[in-house]
């Protein structure tokens, strides 16, 4: 299986260190650092060329993390809540690049809600990660819109509103790839990330990522402990790259396979209960049921590989726009003449 002991270099001949970047300035133990590690692991395993990735983010502790992974990739740390629009523009400019968008719960669910919703509708190819800790870390611990009503702040205050479930929202909006994971569960997060990279469309991943400084205390529903106690999942996922030999034996019905656009597969080993992420109704009811029970569902919640991506519906050339030259872009001599004629009096 691909998660077993990694070789010293990957298929590109790169070592894991080649996927790292500057030293993190997160607090020690911050969930966000674990997500950066998972991204590094996934890209290393997949043999991604860092130079084909662009890292996009908004503002927040989470949004700083692109400085701490994939040092060979360029990135843009934009404005608060606006990562989706910057990423969409960058994506359209160059379809060859693989955007990873990193955001926070404040960044996406509060100020960025509008862009979050509309990015899902547009469905650009992109991995969209929300590093969800239920607080504004960088501004020192105010509630975000994913803070649960029953989850007190360190000072014992409670949020006045119900929290937003970004996965629920994404499902309602028709997102084609909806997953949730936990920064403390690399075993689950890494294969999901790999599947997300292989997905041609918006792959949304809500990652519960505890803020050790402001929201990891008793009673918090975004703490490491809470997630360990209340997280549920219905699958053990593992990822198989197109080239990998599949030598897994399995009983019928125990495993579900999701074949992604580039031919790779996410294999889901069923636990306890049936849940077929390809069926939207199954996804919806799983999410609602667990939510009603106070559980936090993780894993691949929904996937739909049929939905056309933004580039497709835009009829966009596969040759990146950034590579088009003056000869491709400026109309030929004579065309202006014709236009002038049409304006003639």
């Amino acid at each position, binding site marked *: 299986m691909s998660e077993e002991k990694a070789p010293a270099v990957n298929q590109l001949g790169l070592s894991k260190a080649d996927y790292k970047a500057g030293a993190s300035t997160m607090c020690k133990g911050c969930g966000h650092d674990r997500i950066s590690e998972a991204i590094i692991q996934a890209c290393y395993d997949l043999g991604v060329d860092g130079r084909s990735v662009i890292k996009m983010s908004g503002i927040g502790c989470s949004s700083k993390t692109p400085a701490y992974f994939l040092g060979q990739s360029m990135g843009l740390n934009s404005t608060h809540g606006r990562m989706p629009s910057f990423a969409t*523009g960058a994506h359209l400019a160059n379809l060859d690049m693989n955007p990873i968008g990193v955001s926070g719960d404040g960044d996406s669910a509060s100020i960025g809600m509008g*862009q979050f919703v509309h990015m899902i509708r*547009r469905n650009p190819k992109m991995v969209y990660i929300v590093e969800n800790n239920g607080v504004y870390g960088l501004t020192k611990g105010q509630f975000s819109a994913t803070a649960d009503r029953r989850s007190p702040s360190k000072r014992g205050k409670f949020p006045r509103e119900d929290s937003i479930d970004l996965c629920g929202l994404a499902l309602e909006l028709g997102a084609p790839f909806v997953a949730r994971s936990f920064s403390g569960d690399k075993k689950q997060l890494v294969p999901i990330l790999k599947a997300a990279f292989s997905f041609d469309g918006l792959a949304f991943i809500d990652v519960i990522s505890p803020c050790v400084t402001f929201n990891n205390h008793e009673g918090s529903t975004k703490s490491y402990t809470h997630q360990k106690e209340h997280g549920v999942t219905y699958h053990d996922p593992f990822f198989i790259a197109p080239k990998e030999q599949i030598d897994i034996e399995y009983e019928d019905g125990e495993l579900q396979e999701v074949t992604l656009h580039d031919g790779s597969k996410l294999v889901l080993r069923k636990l306890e209960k049936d849940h077929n992420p390809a069926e939207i109704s199954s996804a919806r009811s799983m999410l609602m049921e667990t939510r009603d029970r106070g559980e936090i569902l993780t894993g691949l919640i929904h996937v739909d590989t049929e939905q056309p991506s933004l580039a497709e519906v835009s009829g*966009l050339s596969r*040759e990146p*726009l950034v590579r088009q030259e003056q000869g491709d872009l400026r109309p030929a001599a004579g065309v202006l003449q014709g236009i002038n004629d049409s*304006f003639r009096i």
Partner: protein
Amino acid sequence: MNPVVNDFSVRIATPNGTGSQTSNIVIHRALLRMGLAANAKNLFPSNIAGLPTWYQIRVSPGGWQTMAESWQILLPLNQATIGKDLRESAPGTVVIDNSDWKTAESAFEGFVRYPVPFDKLARGIDNAKLRPRLKNLIYVGVVAWLLDIPIKAVREALETVFPGKTEVVDLNESAAMIGHEYASDNFTKQDPYTTESADQVGNKILVDGNEAAALGAIWGGVSVVAWYPITPASSLAENLEKHIEKIREKDSEGANRFVVVQAEDELAAVGMALGAGWAGARSMTSTSGPGISLMAENLGLGYFTEIPTVIYDVQRVGPSTGLPTRTQQSDMLQVAFHSHGDTRFPMLLPANPGEAFSMSCQAYDLAEKYQTPVVFMSDLDLGMNNWICDPLEEPSADFDRGKIASDEVIARLEKWGRYRDVDGDGIPYRTIPGVTLHPDAAHLTRGSGHDEDANYSESPEVYSRNLDRIARKISGMVVDLPEPIFKPGHGDMGLIAFGTTDWAVEEALADMETTPDYLRVRSFPFHQQVGEFLENHETVMVIEQNQQGQMAQLLAMEYPQLAGRIVSKTYYGGLPLSANFVREALQSASEVEAR
């Protein structure tokens, strides 16, 4: 009574959304067919149907494209405004009214009246379904009779409006003929206004500034367009999409070499434009007042991280919602120093469709060469009204993509850094993700303090140095920005204007004896010539279309030593500026001087 040939304005008052716009355009087009450089201004409400609209067509020996403050012929065909329309007309005005409305006779006193029973006549239109729309054509016929416009010209106008639809043209023509016949049967000409064919237009074209700017963008190589609808900017992006679909060559698979995205709002639109610019595509967004306000924060990011993109601000009357369908030049101060913190945005100030095309095209070179958002400052009058002007000119310059840190460049430079001032002009070398592959190229662009190598820094020195370099870079743009245009006069007074104010100035100066020297500013930051112009004139009047005298204030800030010479004259009622306003402004100034 001596005939007055080719020298009058016709004002047509109707409720909007009733189809009268077609009739108005037909009259305008018919005059154009006669070789007259007729100008038309559409004064429309912020509404879809039912509110007052005025359409004012002007024919003048000089072929002026400005709106006159008064009119000689009035069609008060909106019952909601007829009283006001008549009251605002000068004695002797020719009035074509709807006699079926039973307006009090007294209202027409002092006018030359041609009462037409439009409602009754309309019953003569066979096609019941189209009758409400065709009814409007009746007044076209009456006007054609009045001004001696050949029926042929009317038909040709209809053919332009309904290309290839002979049946529709026939229907409309016959409706017009109802009016024409009624007028020739019932009226004798009692007024002097008439037309004669002439050769005022020659090779000229008729186009509005938004369409010209849209074409300029295509010639400028734009490939990512993100916008959000707003009057008066919408037609810029809509025309761009329409034309680019046709004239931008497809790739070998027939796919698009561009993308147009209708964003969910202006925050997203400018975000997409900046994202695309960052990734290396030529990108743009277009908007007006409320949208430009919403873009403040993201534009500040673009300025400080040095991302090329082009913003079109088609100005309308502000503040707030203001008069969304009226014209003004009142976003100047906001845009010049947009966003919090120290910024200074380059602005292009086109005055006519030709410049709308060329400056729009050039904007992409400027944005990429100087790695900054460039703001194209148009206005509703330029953007949405049609102007007779010279044909658009094929740009002579090739794309200038500026300093791109290709792999070779990075290898060549001793030490490449995203924000290093290698050449001493303040302009660094930028990378293009996925194109620049050199291992040193990667970096994270960020709006927070950063050093020459794009690394995070909170050092005061690094910060100040960076800000200074950017300021130097922006100031350095004058060598490539459109130069001011100097037109020598006789007086020792100077006159400064910009954008569409130019049309009124040109007309006013044309018939003055002692004209001031005139400098038309075409960009910000200002060229040296602007300072010299202030130096060379004791008094410099600045005429503009906003309340505060924003250009005058910008000049005072940039040239504090000479600020005392500036006299600011402003119009901010939202109508296209008239030559008369300029005349009176200059008059008042010479009176001041004489005292």
